[in-house]
């Protein structure tokens, strides 16, 4: 809800939301100039947890920098390592066995569901409902258990290798995942009944926090944020990579541009990810998980390489400029949340602080990924 603002000079005050604030979910600071409860001007301040991942990428070898990628976004880490291995494989021309590609797609989609589940809980908690978080992390726990058995870690995975995987899936992976799919579908129905249909939630999200198509384009927003504003763009469909062309799935797009549209996009994406996992398990071929022939030392030929992947938060791009050495000459990460967050400054002007923070929640910010 926005209202015309007529302020006299000296009538506003500055409110620092963050770096320690329950709504920012991390060390993000938003400097708000407020007129009562209305926001006159907002400025996001970054850099509190900058760790120079890009520089690290330039003074380490390609395998050495692999674990760094999962430290970007701790909720959907597999998508980011997927981007890195794909970029390096493309650069050095490594063939990946089909089985490895399928397992990658299945695990990435499971990680996407886990990430969206956590977002769902945290977002509803932002709106004041604490209980859905508990339900969501219980379902997420199930995914983490499955992934932990295969990858060895629960949050910052380093499972993919150049050319394949660290190890094959175990005997329990397929039955556990098959049991998980119907369970998750039940849960999604439950969430719809408990949260989506709730009149208070709908009043808080519908027509609140409009992000126009133009605004999204201007700031380069991708992922569910852009798809909630009617931009039909998903890297998995538009620039297919890995084995995604083999799967039959839809890209949910909503044209309402409000917070509720972004909410619906993510809820629908979970269902689509379940479909991908289902098909992936069906089609999963036998065979090796690492290529028979693989260079001992990863040394991509000199050149400029770019690979984009669709992570839980949007299009994550990784650009590698190689001079033929064992380190990258330039290592550039294009993280989706960085772009998604920057439209907040412009979008929240004239909004009430409650609605602005609901809008911020709907952007699904993960701060370590902005401050890489």
């Amino acid at each position, binding site marked *: 809800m926005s209202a015309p603002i007529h302020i006299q000079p000296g009538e506003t005050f500055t409110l620092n939301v963050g770096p320690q604030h*329950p709504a920012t979910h991390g060390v993000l600071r938003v400097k708000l100039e407020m007129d009562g*409860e209305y926001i006159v001007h907002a400025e996001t301040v970054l850099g509190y947890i900058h760790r120079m991942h890009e520089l690290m990428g330039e003074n380490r070898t390609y395998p050495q920098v692999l674990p760094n990628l999962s430290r970007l976004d701790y909720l959907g880490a597999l998508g980011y390592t997927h981007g890195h291995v794909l970029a390096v494989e493309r650069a050095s021309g490594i063939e990946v066995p089909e089985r490895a590609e399928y397992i990658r797609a299945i695990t990435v989609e499971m990680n996407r569901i886990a990430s969206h589940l956590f977002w769902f809980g945290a977002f509803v908690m932002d709106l004041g*409902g*604490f*209980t859905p978080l508990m339900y969501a992390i219980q379902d997420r726990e199930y995914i983490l258990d499955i992934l932990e058995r295969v990858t060895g870690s629960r949050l910052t995975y380093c499972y993919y290798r150049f050319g394949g995987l660290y190890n094959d899936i175990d005997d329990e992976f397929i039955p556990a995942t098959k049991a998980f799919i119907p369970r998750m579908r039940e849960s999604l129905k439950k969430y719809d009944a408990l949260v989506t249909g709730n009149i208070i939630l709908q009043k808080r999200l519908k027509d609140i926090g409009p992000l126009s198509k133009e605004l999204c384009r201007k700031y380069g927003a991708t992922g569910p944020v852009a798809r909630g504003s009617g931009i039909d763009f998903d890297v998995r469909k538009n620039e297919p990579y890995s084995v995604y062309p083999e799967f039959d799935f839809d890209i949910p797009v909503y044209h309402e541009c409000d917070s509720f549209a972004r909410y619906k996009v993510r809820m629908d994406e979970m269902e689509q990810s379940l479909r991908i996992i289902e098909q992936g398990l069906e089609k999963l071929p036998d065979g090796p998980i690492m290529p028979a022939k693989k260079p001992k030392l990863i040394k991509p030929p000199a050149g400029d390489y770019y690979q984009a992947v669709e992570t839980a938060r949007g299009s994550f791009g990784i650009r590698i400029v190689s001079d033929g050495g064992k380190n990258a000459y330039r290592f550039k990460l294009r993280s989706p949340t960085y772009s998604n967050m920057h439209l907040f400054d412009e979008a929240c002007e004239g909004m*009430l602080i409650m609605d602005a923070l609901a809008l911020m929640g709907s952007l699904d910010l993960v701060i370590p990924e902005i401050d890489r």
Partner: protein
Amino acid sequence: MSLTVLNAIIAVVIAIGFAALNAAYLVWAERRGAGRIQRRPGPNVNGPLGLLQPLADGAKLMTKQLMIPGGADKALFMVAPVLAMAPAIMSFVTIPFSDVIVAKSMDVGVLMIFAFASLGSMSILFAGWSSRNKYGVMASVRAVSQAISYEVPMLITVITIVMMTGSMNLHDLAVSQAGGFWHWNIIPSLASPLMPVSFLIFFICSLAETNRAPFDLGEAESELVAGFHTEYGSMGFGLFFMGEYANIVIGASLITILFLGGWGCPFGLFPSVFWFLLKIYLLIATFIWIRWTFPRTTIYGLLNLSWKILIPISLFNLLLTAGLLKVF
């Protein structure tokens, strides 16, 4: 004379004891209830079923240092938590728990409770203002506008009931509904066919008056950190916390007396204090249930609900009841 003084002292001690005990154990009940709803055990380590948890919490709060932020208005800062707790305890004095268990039966009992209830928003305003915290000020302004807009429909609803009963004495109000649930005010009668609606309005208003979710805008943690008590620690925070739960008990007691027949049995048998306690704890369980189910409303949604929906309906109900009372 001395007997009256002794009576008064005993009444006050019992009132404070009841309020404090309820406040402490409702926190426990709330946490256990939340645990039930969220598929987790809740506090279960201290004592059987975690029943000693309130004692541990109390000891922790009392032994913490009382911090006063720099630049705060010290006097108001210290007065505010006391002001949150004291009116709640005072209100217990006039609440009849049964035909005989009442500290002081007053002819203006209803008025007195509402007078004290409005003091509660003073304490929130003091707390937010004196702690010199922007979040605190914003929260306290919210809480006061909320309290003002919800006292109006609440009082209009009470006027409707007082009109039907012809008394402002809480004891008389309860006695007038004696003998089975079909005599209760919540059941529509010829004179007031809209009574269930009134009950709903009163119930929503009590949620808002006690700053409970989904109307807990004064302490909306996701935007205002901890709202008006951001700067409070130690027993200052403890008193706010206890005051909130004491207010919940009063809200539930008022609903019970005004709409649910006070201490009367639903089937007209053996009216006793047992029924009264059963009813208020059922209502409180509903409060807890609502809190852990719904997200929070917005401040404008909240004010719109009161001024555009609740007040017109309650006014219409008042006029309707007045007219029908004249007819029948």
